[in-house]
């Protein structure tokens, strides 16, 4: 039983070389190993995922396959009889279809095998490996990916069990640790604060000033949390504003309209490249009267700042800049780190259990278990019968035992031969799993 940390998981490490070269194999890139340009290129569309899974399964050494592709990661999970071959197949397949040089891909990719792969899968599903740890979307994305694979009959006994375990581990971590409960990104922190000010942000109106990538991320999360979906974009280049507003069903306004709009909106997110303040105290002060002092929350994620920090001194107006939000995040990260220790323990436990199951899914342990079961039954019946017979000599008793042994051997001969070699292109694990179920070996 190797520990997770000992798994050969360093990016670019060659596939594990050892006596056991078959099992679960995982190759992937994520936000830590690959920059966004590379991740963009690697991302699989639904159709690409389907064809890729079909192509991979055509290799004789790959019995099950599944592909997870999100904006932060691409993970290919396989059950293979040969780690080395599987690694080469996947990497050359990706570099060919995505036209990325094999060197570049190899440098960014990590490979996990065996229990390291199991542990990685559990950690990804539990959002322990996410860019913002604890974010809940990843589980849904993995479930979708798994569904696609199941629909294409691309998974089998092993991946099915792996994924179901991954889902239950993720669920357990979410309910037993506080990992998902704390804001760890700017937008989470902003939403958390907005809720402390407004109670509910359901019906609040958002104004986005500037249409940068950061603002877009922040606003996306904020919009998801409101039901009004009422949203304005003000941008220097009007057409860019119109485009962004269109994506979130909002409306675009011009920068000059901002002072008037302040009377109607509740949350302002600003991220322009302007060197001066875009919104000043003198603009906000008269507005508060018009608003009948309804609170106004400014989130300034621009550097240099867009919102005059003095606005924070006005009653019922609140200004948070990027550093203030970082402060919120920082504290939550500390809590989260404490929680992730618990989460890692849950993952480790699950990996041990899974590996136990997986190791028993071999021919020898299955035969031994079958033999043991038969022996227990026969010996029990034999001793019952022998009690009813006239006192037997030790020789007679010995003959009965010999007969019992011969019966066990003969009964198990054909199953053993079959399980050791179910025939070409047949998945051994399916029959092993079936046998274990048929004889109720895993009780």
């Amino acid at each position: 039983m190797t520990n997770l940390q000992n798994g050969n998981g360093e990016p670019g490490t060659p596939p594990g070389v050892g006596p056991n070269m078959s099992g679960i194999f995982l190759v992937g890139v994520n936000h830590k190993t690959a920059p966004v340009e590379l991740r963009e290129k690697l991302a699989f569309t639904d159709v690409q995922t389907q064809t890729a899974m079909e192509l991979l399964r055509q290799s004789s050494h790959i019995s099950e396959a599944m592909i997870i592709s999100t904006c932060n990661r691409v993970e290919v999970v396989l059950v293979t009889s040969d780690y080395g071959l599987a690694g080469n197949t996947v990497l050359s397949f990706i570099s060919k279809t995505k036209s990325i040089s094999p060197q570049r891909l190899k440098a960014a990719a990590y490979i996990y095998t065996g229990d390291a792969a199991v542990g990685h899968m559990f950690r990804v599903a539990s959002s322990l490996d996410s860019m913002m740890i604890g974010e809940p979307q990843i589980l849904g994305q993995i479930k979708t990916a798994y569904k696609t694979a199941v629909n294409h009959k691309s998974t089998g006994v092993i991946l099915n069990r792996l994924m179901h375990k991954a889902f239950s581990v993720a669920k357990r971590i979410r309910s037993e640790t506080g990992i998902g409960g704390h804001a760890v990104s700017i937008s989470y922190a902003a939403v958390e604060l907005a809720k402390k000010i407004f109670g509910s942000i359901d019906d609040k109106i958002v104004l986005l000033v500037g249409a940068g990538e950061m603002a877009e991320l922040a606003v996306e999360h904020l919009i998801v949390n409101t039901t009004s979906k009422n949203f304005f974009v003000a941008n220097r280049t009007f057409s860019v504003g119109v485009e962004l507003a269109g994506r979130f069903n909002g409306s675009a306004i011009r920068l000059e309209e901002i002072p008037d709009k302040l009377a109607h909106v509740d949350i302002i997110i600003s991220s322009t490249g302007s060197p001066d303040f875009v919104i000043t105290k003198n603009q906000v002060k008269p507005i508060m009267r018009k608003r009948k002092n309804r609170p106004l929350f400014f989130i300034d994620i621009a550097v240099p700042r867009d919102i005059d920090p003095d606005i924070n001194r006005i009653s019922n107006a609140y200004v948070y800049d990027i550093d203030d939000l970082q402060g919120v995040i920082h504290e939550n990260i500390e809590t989260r780190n404490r929680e992730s220790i618990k989460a890692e323990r849950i993952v480790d436990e699950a990996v041990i259990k899974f590996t136990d199951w997986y190791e028993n899914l071999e021919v020898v342990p299955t035969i031994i278990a079958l033999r043991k079961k038969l022996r227990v039954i026969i010996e029990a019946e034999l001793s019952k019968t022998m009690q009813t017979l006239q006192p037997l000599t030790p020789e007679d008793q010995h003959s009965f035992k010999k007969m019992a042994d011969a019966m066990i051997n003969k009964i198990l001969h054909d199953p053993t031969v079959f399980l050791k070699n179910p025939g070409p292109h047949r998945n051994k694990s399916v029959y092993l799993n079936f046998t274990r179920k048929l004889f109720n070996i895993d009780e």
Partner: protein
Amino acid sequence: MATAFFIIVLFYLLSSAGYLIFLFAQKKIFHRLAYTVMMAGFLAHTGFIGYNFFSLDHIPVQNLHQTLSFAAWSFAGVYLFLKYKYRLNILGAYAAPLVTAFMIAAFLVPTVAVVPSTLFKSLWLIIHVVIIFIAEASLAMACGTGILYLIQEHAIKSKSNRFFLKRLPSLELLDQTGYAFIVTGFTLLTIGLITGFVYAQLVWGRFWSWDNKEIWSVITWLIYAALLHERMVAGWRGRRAAIMAIIGFVAVLFTFFGVNFLLEGHHDKFTKW
């Protein structure tokens, strides 16, 4: 009787401890415990006051001991009722200690035997007393939410104190709840004052006698009237409303105690030993 009173104080004390632990530990179980214990204390207290009512044959608010106890009882009652309605659990960390403080004060002041007076035997008086106390309890809770509002607002504005930011509810909820308390308190205060004037007419033959208690009651009433008016007209909400709720309650307390100790008035018999 002293034992019964002591047990009630103990209930409130335990409830306060529970609420303070809840404030720090943020575990629901402590809130539930504190709430249950407070409810037990309140029921025992109700029985105690009811017993006094019948054995004395008049409403037990004739000396400072009884008045403080009655005030504590109305605070507890209003908190328990409104907590049931608004689910503002954390307000217990203010209400329970306030109730306890009043009870301990009542415990410490001597129980002076008062010559029963026919003054206490009117239905008008009972209505007047009960309504005024419930009004004052509501205004006490409004003051509590006002204090919580100012703490939370400071936590959000200063960006440094995350202790309260995490534990206190949103500004909006505090503001709305405080407003509801003030509307309730103000309405009851108005009715209570009117019944008082009617009773004065019955007993002394005049509605208004320029008594210090009367003057201060009206000043208190005007403070809350101004607050409600400004809220509706100019949108006085949030910070200003919170500060006004606190000032208003200080006026209530002064009318309640200050007038009797510092000034002279026709209520002094029962709130000055």
